């Protein structure tokens, strides 16, 4: 039966999350996405329940906790400004695991009958939750999940952040133009859908600009010994190192690459966003660059406002960008609820789709036809004392030149 694989021509089948053999959609970016066929949840009575899935435990805890705080802050403001609307937030813990995301979403949709779900911060955890939501006709607004194919699942899936399509291309542009790199090595976390997706886009974009990929090596989230793979990377003589994984591994990677003498600039995506990176990366990570959604020190009034309110409620500034993204995601849902006045989750899908020019903390949010918010990104540099904004990259669409 294994020989049947031969006829199936191996790679590529079933790897992109499209088919679920039922109500799932398979539209690519830009084409119309399938509306779910289920009935959706209806609010009984006046209270509208909104669910949130967040990694309150596990590797993604700093992000999950921040996103929850941001959402709570948004809800508090909204209820103060709109005393006639009754909205309740129910938060479920996903434990930073895809299985956790699935069961949390199932519980919220099936038991609590929420009208919308906000979450999650990690692409891998969001994917199964998005499947559930698309099947059950409940809209889901992802907070920090950047992997491209998530919103392709169907019309019920949205996100408040940019996609890896943009992020990978933007970082490739920065590496090529600003850092002047031509021969880059990539170190991917092959257990993380976010990382593999980002590395893919980066490769295509960087090569289309004229750069070369010296070598791509892999590790798995949870590993602690990268020296062997880093030595292999060193063999290939790159002039830069792109690490598309999470800060939990990037820190030790930075330290170990310095120990083995691989002295090249490092850069990566929003997975680096945590002050823990500076602690675990030490001198190896200072000087590195990564792409993030916004920064607390930005001049825009929304940012200043948000940081002040966050500090007042929780006692400290938001530690990661997920606070602002959670805030924005919640506001997307609340704006849609208020503007449309619907009480059914399936109708809410259309209302969220109509969100335009919402002034979010992380940028102005307009839901594109593909469910993705079209926002700029900010390049941050890692210094010993914190992250320093370096450059803003406005939104552009990366078209793969054939």
């Amino acid at each position, binding site marked *: 039966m*294994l020989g049947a694989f031969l006829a*199936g021509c*191996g790679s590529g089948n*079933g790897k992109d999350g*499209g088919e679920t053999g039922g109500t799932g959609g398979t539209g690519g970016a830009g084409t119309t996405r399938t509306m779910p066929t289920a009935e959706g949840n209806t609010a009984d009575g006046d209270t509208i329940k909104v669910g949130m899935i967040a990694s309150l435990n596990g590797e993604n805890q700093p992000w999950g906790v921040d996103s929850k705080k941001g959402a709570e802050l948004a809800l508090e403001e909204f209820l103060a400004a709109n005393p006639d609307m009754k909205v309740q937030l129910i938060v479920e813990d996903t434990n930073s695991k895809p299985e956790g995301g699935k*069961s949390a979403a199932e519980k919220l949709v*099936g038991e609590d009958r929420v009208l919308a779900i906000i979450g999650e911060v990690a692409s891998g955890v969001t994917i199964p939750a998005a499947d559930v939501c698309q099947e059950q006709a409940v809209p889901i607004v992802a907070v920090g999940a950047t992997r491209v194919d998530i919103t392709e699942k169907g019309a019920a899936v949205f996100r408040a952040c940019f996609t890896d399509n943009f992020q990978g291309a933007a970082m490739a542009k920065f590496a090529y133009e600003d850092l002047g790199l031509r021969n880059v090595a990539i170190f991917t976390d092959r257990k993380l859908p976010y990382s593999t997706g980002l590395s893919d886009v980066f490769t295509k974009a960087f090569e289309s600009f004229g750069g070369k990929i010296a070598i791509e090596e892999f590790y798995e989230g949870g590993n602690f010994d990268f020296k062997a793979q880093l030595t292999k990377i060193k063999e290939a003589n790159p002039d830069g190192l792109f690490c598309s994984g999470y800060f939990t591994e990037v820190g030790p990677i930075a330290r170990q690459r310095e120990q083995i003498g691989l002295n090249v600039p490092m850069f990566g995506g929003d997975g680096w966003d945590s002050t823990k990176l500076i602690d675990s990366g030490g001198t190896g990570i200072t000087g590195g660059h990564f792409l993030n959604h916004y920064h607390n020190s930005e001049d825009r009034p929304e940012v200043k406002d948000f940081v002040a309110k966050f500090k007042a409620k929780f006692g400290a500034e938001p530690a990661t960008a997920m606070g602002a993204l959670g805030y924005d995601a919640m506001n997307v849902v609340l704006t849609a609820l208020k503007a449309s006045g619907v009480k059914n989750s399936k109708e809410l899908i259309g209302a969220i789709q109509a969100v335009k020019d919402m002034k979010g903390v992380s940028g102005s949010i307009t839901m594109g036809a593909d469910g993705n918010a079209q926002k700029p990104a900010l390049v941050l540099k890692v210094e010993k004392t914190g992250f320093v904004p370096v450059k803003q990259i406005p939104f552009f669409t990366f078209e793969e030149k054939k």
Partner: protein
Amino acid sequence: MSESTSPLPHPIESIMKGSRYQAGPFWIARVLSLIATIALLYGFHQFIAPKLGIYDVRLIVLSLLFATLAVSLNLINGITGQFSVGHAAFYLIGAITAGKLSTTFYTPNPGNYNPQVWLVLMIFAGGAAAAIAGLLVGLPSLRLRGDYLAVATLGFGEIVNVFLRNQDGKSQAITLTAVVALIAISIVLYLYILLLKRLPVYKGFKGFAFGMLKLIVALAAMRLAAWGVFAALGPSLDKFGRLDTGGAIGLVGVPKLTQIYFIILLFIGTIAISRNLLKSAHGLSFLAVREDELAADATGVSTTNVKVTAFAIGAAIAGMAGALFAHYNGSVSPDDFKMDVSFMLVAMVVIGGTGSITGAALAGIGLKLLEEGLRKLPQIPAVDLFSLVIAAIVLFAAYRFVSQRGWLKIDGGLKVPLTVLGALACLGVGWLGYLTTKADLSWVLRIGILAVLAGTLIGLLFTKARPAALPRFGLFAACLYVVTLLKVPISSGMHSISGIENLIGKTMYNPSDLRWAVFSIALVFVMILRSQGLLGHHEFSWSFVKSFLGKRELAPA
């Protein structure tokens, strides 16, 4: 206290004696039960299944699947006595095979296959793939015993996991040509061995012609092997691409074809297979291998066949369960099939009772329900939890201290007061404990504890050991109550120590996180106190329940 005075040991006796086989009633009973099962499942599918919420469906599916897995593992561990700690690998192989075939060949509506028929095909495919893996594991097991076998099966499980993690269609995956080559080599070798033993030529010809035959076959096999190795290592032979099962992220997009009745059918089928195997003459040889392998070998039981068959059947069932899981979940991620799933399965079998089919099934359902059901409980503040633990430790130490000095005489004095205290404490623990401590445990848990205590008390009333058992029980219930009482001052004490308050004051524990810690402690306790598990070698039956209540001695099994 069994009625018969026959010299034969009980299991053999029950098989040999028993009722006389009468064809008519036997077959009527079998056919009727089959019809009844189908009717029940049909009714379930039509009337109950559509009403279930997705969360309930998940509970039912997972607990039944794990119960099936536990029963299949019981066949290897409990009935044949081979210690296998790598069962999750078979589960994974079945899931990946079925999932990969579905994503490659199945198209949904209008589609080229009826969904149910396709699913059945996939179940068999998954089962077959896992059975082959089971054979592969079973063969080395012939040489290994006990601990070494355990670690070897653990290792095999990890090898399968790491191997499948790497099949992502990219440079580290195995090339399809290599896969074909390996299959071809195995077929050739198998045919070689088969034919060699079957050819009439073998009996007659020895010497030159036969030697030539062997040489030719050997050369052909070596040529194939060389081609295979070259194909595996040579990227230029990469014409057909590389095996892609989704790598570390796993397979996605598997069509969701599974209905609950499939899972129930598999569950019932597994129990039926296990039981029929156990009660048959073949089953006796399995039991013999478990009890004393050397003696079995000496008596003429083919231990090789038995062990390999056990592994193959156990693995096949696990593979079928895996196929069903893949088509329920829609995705197969190697991360969900790691060592801890294997450990959990072994724990299910052991806690339920090694060798007991119903024990394994019940433990499987129970533990999985516990795991999923615990999510519903509210969070427990860390300080509360620690103060409960501290109170329990203090009380335990005090009890040891007291009983070592003989201050509490159970079989001497203090009987009646303790009995009364026990009955009262039963009622009190649930209700008063809540009032005084505001432990805020969900009412499910409270009623559960109450029910267990009440049930035990009532059961004790009927047992022969009543004079000693009831006071002991009273003491136990009283201790529980005292622990809940003690918790209050301890926790307020902890709150007032600012250092502790700062450190863990705000921490809330999720019951489902706690479950693993509690589960592992429970495992250790069960092992120390009753190492044959809850049901031991017995099955769950009326006689078991009656023996528990002290009415009748259980025949040794």
